[in-house]
């Protein structure tokens, strides 16, 4: 270690939440086939083979699978093996190549919205996409809803 950053004590004042970056159930259902839905869970959760990330017991949502038309781009793919973010060009290739339309609005989700917050940061803060939302209800909510379409298997 060559540089030790100085972090003087300071105060942060919490502000009202910014609901413009949160997506809720009805908006997510309406986004099927009309906006980018990015499922950032592992391929096995996306397909419905796992109900939760594999470091947790498999007992969360009622059903496995994903939201129809969602593209599966695991959050971890935005990072290099050493934990740093990939370059902007590599990130654009990653998301664009998986079918994300950068001219359209995007909703990211995972199981409880934590991993998808990472992807929200990548799309909104690193790539500058203007309208990206995090669905914090995510699969825990969607996979337990009555009357919504669910797709299983590896295809979107």
């Amino acid at each position: 270690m060559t540089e030790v950053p100085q972090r003087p004590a300071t105060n942060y004042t919490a502000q009202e939440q910014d609901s413009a970056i949160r997506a809720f159930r009805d908006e997510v259902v309406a986004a099927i086939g009309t906006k980018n839905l990015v499922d950032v869970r592992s391929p096995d959760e996306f397909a419905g083979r796992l109900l939760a990330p594999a470091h947790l017991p498999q007992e969360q949502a009622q059903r496995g699978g994903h939201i129809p038309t969602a593209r599966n781009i695991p959050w971890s793919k935005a990072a290099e093996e050493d934990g740093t973010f990939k370059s902007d060009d590599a990130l654009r290739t990653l998301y664009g190549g998986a079918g994300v339309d950068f001219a359209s609005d995007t909703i990211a989700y995972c199981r409880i919205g934590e991993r998808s917050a990472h992807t929200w940061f990548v799309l909104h803060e690193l790539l500058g996409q203007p309208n990206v939302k995090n669905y914090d209800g995510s699969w825990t909510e969607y996979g337990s809803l009555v009357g919504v379409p669910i797709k299983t298997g590896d295809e979107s």
Partner: protein
Amino acid sequence: MTTADGCGAPAGGAALTDAGNQAVVQGHVTRAGAPVATGYARLLNGDGEFVAEVPLGEDGGFRFFAAPGTWTLRVLAPGGVRAEQAVSAAIGQIANLEVAV
């Protein structure tokens, strides 16, 4: 302190008393017989894709709750240490791995 109330991975993996209806993959990482407490255990699926990762516990332990099938367990530790083992998981069973690096 291990908690499992978020998506975060508790060091060593979530606690377990009984496999129940889970397909558990767990084990320990050792170097020359001593536990490796600094590092990560990563679970890869049959296509080699990242599925999950936990920091190793103080006893070098890790635990995953997989689906039935064949998986790869990859250990990453400081100094570029990397080890892999194939493992099969089945519902109601605990697959135990001892990984020496």
